[in-house]
């Protein structure tokens, strides 16, 4: 008896962490140096954004800390550079490093929330279209088809313009942020809806769904509790790649002047501001936010590509 018990204990399945470290996905991660570097850069950026309040030398949103005498200082390795402004200052005496750290936070916030919104909308509509079929399916997928003919940036700009018109001219930063999240969500839901619908069409003919129907579960419960968990795999990959796209879209909108205002700048806003100083020789005001944005997007893209290949055995 005692022996039997120990064998059951020994045969206990390994924990989540142990399984994750032993999996193919982890193995393919450790094999690719480029992916590891990209993941490290991504984590570094996330950490910097989270800890912006602690690590940045200055609070760029506090006018009391800004001194005009410090304006337009070059980076510290330049002869005219001054401590503590490592990457120089902008026209208002704002420390570029601090502005970038806080801008990174806004960019990532809008990116994450936009992707979350797009995914929620897309998954819900895809689930409904695939599971209910019929008129619902036709209607949702036709809208998706029409929207797919337009680039996301055009739709985001339109939504932004309409929202401004409905809410009235000038918006405070918090509302602008919500409008941005809303417009990014509306421009990127189609891919989720299509993918989820495709998986649902496969899943809904399986025995476990028939069994759930047989015991009389209502359709919403079957969709949310039984079908949904089985179709989420591909969504994770799309979400990672979309995070980079959402960050680019936000930066583009802010660069075009339809995004975050100067008082609460994202990386795109910082680049738009810096672009005005390109010709007067203050290259650092545009260069450092630009480099930060490019590195961030490149790193997330590389991680996303790796995730796509690792989770999709057909591509291996």
């Amino acid at each position, binding site marked *: 008896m005692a022996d039997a018990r120990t064998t059951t204990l020994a045969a206990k399945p390994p924990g989540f962490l142990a399984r994750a470290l032993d999996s193919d996905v982890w193995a393919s991660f450790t094999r690719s140096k480029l992916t590891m570097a990209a993941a490290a850069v991504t984590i570094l950026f996330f950490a910097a954004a989270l800890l912006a309040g602690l690590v940045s030398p200055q609070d760029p949103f506090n006018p009391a800390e800004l001194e005009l005498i410090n304006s337009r200082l070059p980076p510290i390795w330049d002869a005219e550079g001054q401590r503590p402004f490592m990457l120089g200052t902008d026209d208002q005496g704002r420390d570029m490093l601090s502005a970038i750290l806080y801008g990174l936070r806004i960019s990532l916030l809008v990116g994450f929330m936009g992707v979350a919104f797009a995914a929620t909308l897309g998954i819900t509509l895809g689930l409904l279209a695939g599971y209910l079929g019929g008129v619902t399916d036709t209607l949702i997928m*036709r*809208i998706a*088809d*029409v929207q797919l*003919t*337009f*680039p996301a*940036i*055009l739709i985001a*700009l*339109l939504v*932004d*313009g*309409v929202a*401004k*018109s*409905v809410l009235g*001219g000038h918006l405070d930063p918090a509302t602008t942020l919500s409008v941005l999240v809303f417009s990014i969500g509306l421009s990127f839901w189609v891919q989720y809806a299509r993918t989820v619908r495709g998986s649902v069409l496969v899943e809904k003919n399986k025995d476990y769904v028939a069994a759930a129907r047989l015991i009389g579960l209502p359709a919403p419960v079957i969709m949310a509790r039984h079908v949904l968990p089985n179709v989420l795999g591909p969504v994770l990959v799309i979400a990672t790649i979309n995070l*980079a796209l959402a960050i*680019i879209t936000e*930066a*583009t909108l802010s*660069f*075009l*002047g*339809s995004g975050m205002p100067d008082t609460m700048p994202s990386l795109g806003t910082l*680049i738009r501001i810096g*672009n005005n100083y*390109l*010709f007067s020789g203050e*290259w650092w005001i*545009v260069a450092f936010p*630009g480099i930060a*944005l*490019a590195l961030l*997007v*490149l790193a997330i*893209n590389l991680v996303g590509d790796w995730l796509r290949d690792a989770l999709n055995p057909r591509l291996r």
Partner: protein
Amino acid sequence: MPLFKNADAARETAMLAFTIRRALQALGVLLAVGIIAFAMFRFAGDPVNQIVSIDTPAAEREEVRRSLGLDDPVPVQFGRYFLRAAQGNFGISYQFRQPVAQLLIDRMPATLELAFCATVFALTFGILMGVYSALRRDSLLSKLFQAVSLVGISLPTFLIGILLIYLFSVTLGLLPSYGRGDTVRLGWWTSGLFTLSGLKALIMPSITLGLFQMTLIMRLVRAEMLEVLRSDYIRFARARGLKTRAIHFGHALKNTLVPVITIAGLQLGAIIAFAIITETVFQWPGMGLLFVQAVQNVDIPIMAAYLLLVAAIFVTINLIVDILYTVVDPRLRSTLRQPV
């Protein structure tokens, strides 16, 4: 009993049916976009407020409302909007106080010339780089092309534009950083293709706009070439003792071009829409810049008209590519008679 006298007539009828079905689908898309454009025009911001001043009495407002037909049933208003739009009347811009159609027409040549140059740039360099990196897979230059394509896909368009301006305008002082340069009037069309300053002004915006498409075409040509070079008829051509050059360019490249032209055609619409960003970076006086300014100033008539115009361009290009595809590739014709 055969329904048609011969196979040719049958095929022609199938082609016609296919064309009509695609055209109807295109009209459906246009109608859907039209409803959205109308809804924006009618419900996002009251058109009356744009015409009268703040202290206009209510009775006068009602008068304006009636004269604009805004108290008619909504379907009637939609019908009227659609009829006017079909005749090229998109209303009056709030900020410029001019007909929207005229504003768009004035700026159309700038955008179309930019889109054309960007496409030529993307096709030329995309195909060249794609062929080279397929034929010399492991050479250093191929690896460089791969790196460039990764950058082209990852970098936001506006950053590429700023980088080019910094390099060629600020540092080297070679190229103008904004505007179209000198233009020549040809009827209602203004062209920058015939003056030196116009051509110089086109270089950087075209590269900025075309870079993404270039990387797309390069990847496509490379993948297609690698696929084709492995096929039996290339091996057979080698066995016949044909020159390598003739095989690569006469046989292999020719067969990769159909998908390339399809993608390039479909991307033309995307190029026109992405011109919004490029035109803002280079202050290029085209439709995209007009649209960005309209969004900032909440000029709904311009936004609605631009949406309809872009939809019309997209739908037309898709239709042409669909039809051309069946003409170019006979294999697709056999599937025509099956309902899509």
